[in-house]
């Protein structure tokens, strides 16, 4: 409680850019099961990721957190042999509805990966706009009301990277440091104005300073976009998230949610003994 309240001022800081009206989306997972081939990795997961909140998924390695995250924007099905059951409702609509194409849900639910992956053939500027240019959406790049420039600046400011790269937007995205690359990837995801942003251990390869910058970024963007973040770092989950879900897979059994609730409840008043052990670092 105290921790989230200290983080909150960052989100409301006067320096945060004025954003065009954008409504974060709500995600609801209902009775989700997942398989790789015959191997079941997730069982009966129910989770509500409320609009405008940061939800952290925690749990030991191999408990299905990342799989669950990838189910939320239909990246799971890209793995050969992957299967799933259940419903994912984005603002009430099932993203696995056969009438919806995967690319439509992926445009609304963005993703930042564990390893920063800016496109090496593009400049920083083009990396930010990649989501639009790759999908063939036209942005006005010339003239007075240059929408592209404004979008690049806004996205980079949101990701907390603008001041560091404003003078070298024409250089390759790969020339940045690891932490900057990750924030560039966040900016790239934000530029397509998603309703939800999924983050799969975004700081696992970053130094403490970059981690702090990314966490600040998460708090800043939370008002515009619903964030779901997988993390192995308990302090990070406490610092950035409003709600928390603890995943666990007993040996040989599929992963499931042991406990979920507000972050302060999960960390300070866990109901389940296993949660208490995990958040206090006694296993996992």
């Amino acid at each position, binding site marked *: 409680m105290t921790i989230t309240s200290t983080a909150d001022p960052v989100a409301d800081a006067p320096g945060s850019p004025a954003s065009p009206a954008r409504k974060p989306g709500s995600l609801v997972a209902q009775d989700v099961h997942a398989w790789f081939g015959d191997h079941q990795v997730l069982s009966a997961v129910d989770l509500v990721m409320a609009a405008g909140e940061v939800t952290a998924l925690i749990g030991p390695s191999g408990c299905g957190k990342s799989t669950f995250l990838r189910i939320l924007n239909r990246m799971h099905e890209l793995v050969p042999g992957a299967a799933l059951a259940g419903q994912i409702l984005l603002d009430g609509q099932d993203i696995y509805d056969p009438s919806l194409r995967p690319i439509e849900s992926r445009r609304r639910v963005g993703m930042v990966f564990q390893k920063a992956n800016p496109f090496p053939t593009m400049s920083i500027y083009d990396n930010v706009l990649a989501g639009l240019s790759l999908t063939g959406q036209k942005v006005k790049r010339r003239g007075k009301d240059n929408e592209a420039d404004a979008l690049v600046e806004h996205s980079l400011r949101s990701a907390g990277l603008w001041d560091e790269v404003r003078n070298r937007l024409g*250089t390759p995205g790969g020339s940045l440091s690891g932490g900057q690359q990750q924030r560039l990837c966040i900016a790239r995801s934000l530029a397509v104005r998603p309703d939800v942003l999924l983050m799969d251990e975004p700081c696992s390869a970053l130094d403490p300073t970059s981690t702090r910058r990314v966490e600040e970024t998460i708090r800043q963007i939370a008002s515009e976009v619903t964030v779901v973040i997988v993390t192995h770092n308990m302090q990070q989950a406490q610092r950035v998230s409003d709600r928390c879900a603890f995943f666990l897979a007993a040996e040989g059994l599929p992963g499931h949610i042991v406990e979920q609730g507000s972050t302060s409840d999960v960390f300070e008043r866990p109901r389940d003994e296993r949660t208490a052990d995990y958040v206090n670092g006694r296993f996992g």
Partner: protein
Amino acid sequence: MTTTTVAPAEAPTPAAPPATRPVPERIRIGGLGPDLVLHVGVALSGAISLAWLLYERMLPTSGTIGFWIFAYALFLILLVAASSTTLDRLGVIDRLVGALVATAGLVMVSALVGIVVFTFVHGKDALAHTNFFKDTMAYSGPDAALDQGGIYAAMVGTLEQVAISVVVSVPLGLATAVYLSEVRGRLARVVRVVVQAMTAVPTIVAGLFIYSLVILQLGHGRSGLAAALALSVSMVPVVITTAEVVLRLVPNGLREASLALGTTQWQTVWRVVLPTARPGLVTAVLLGVARIIGETSPVLLVAGSTNELNYDPRHGPQLSLPLFVFNGLRTPIDVAITRAFGAGVVLLALVVLFFALARIIGGRTPGRLSRRQQRRLARRLGAPT
């Protein structure tokens, strides 16, 4: 308490400004140590002297090749002996393997240099005449002096045939590679096996295939186009196998990043995967061209034989450089053989030129805007507000 307060105060002193202290001399790392030079020198001179004494004088043997093999074996033994005076067992093995690997490299380089020098020396008399590059052999017999006739027709033929092969093979090869590595359709395994089998098809068989298909079945007649098709049969599998490997090297994270932005697979392949793999794809095309540019046998079957200049690859027989070399070397005439070697040098030069050009076109650092674009961006957005 006092010590802790004193320590931070003293801490900056060692990190005094670098100007006040002289920079120490740089440590030499690697390179040829005096120890190594001595041992190799001792082993080399000892091996040659000993080999001469034993192989040529004392043993009932002689001959150049045998002498050098014998000397090399002695060199290795002496190198081990000399190295073991200062090194332990692991160090000696390290040096021995180093010597073997370095020898392999040297043999390769000298073989290549040998080929180039040999060809050039034999063909240099022909290269000295400008008519060699501008004229054809249409009005000169094979025994005509070197200041008459030339290889112009053959150069035209080679350039046209290779160009047609590239136009046919590159789209086909790259598309198949994309199918194998990106689409991974149900047929991928079959296609891959067939492609791998095709790389092993002898080029003369490729020539026969085109001969029976285009010339016998379709009744098209011998032409440069038929030759280019025969060459394509050899080139396509090389392009496919290399391009597939290159595409697989593109990190999967880039594909996922692109798909997660809501792109279709086609957009991901066209805008992310292929540009990322571009330098490797250029290599794939170059390897394909390298495979066919010097091919003689398929051309021999389907291009026909002529000394006339023929610009039109669709009709009539067309000469090419490898064919010219082949025909020249078959004759017992000295000037014709010299001309053939000259054509060989031109072929080598063409390959070098082509490869350099492809590297320049395909190798631009990705993701870097031109200076002008960078300046424009900086003017728009870079200035601090």
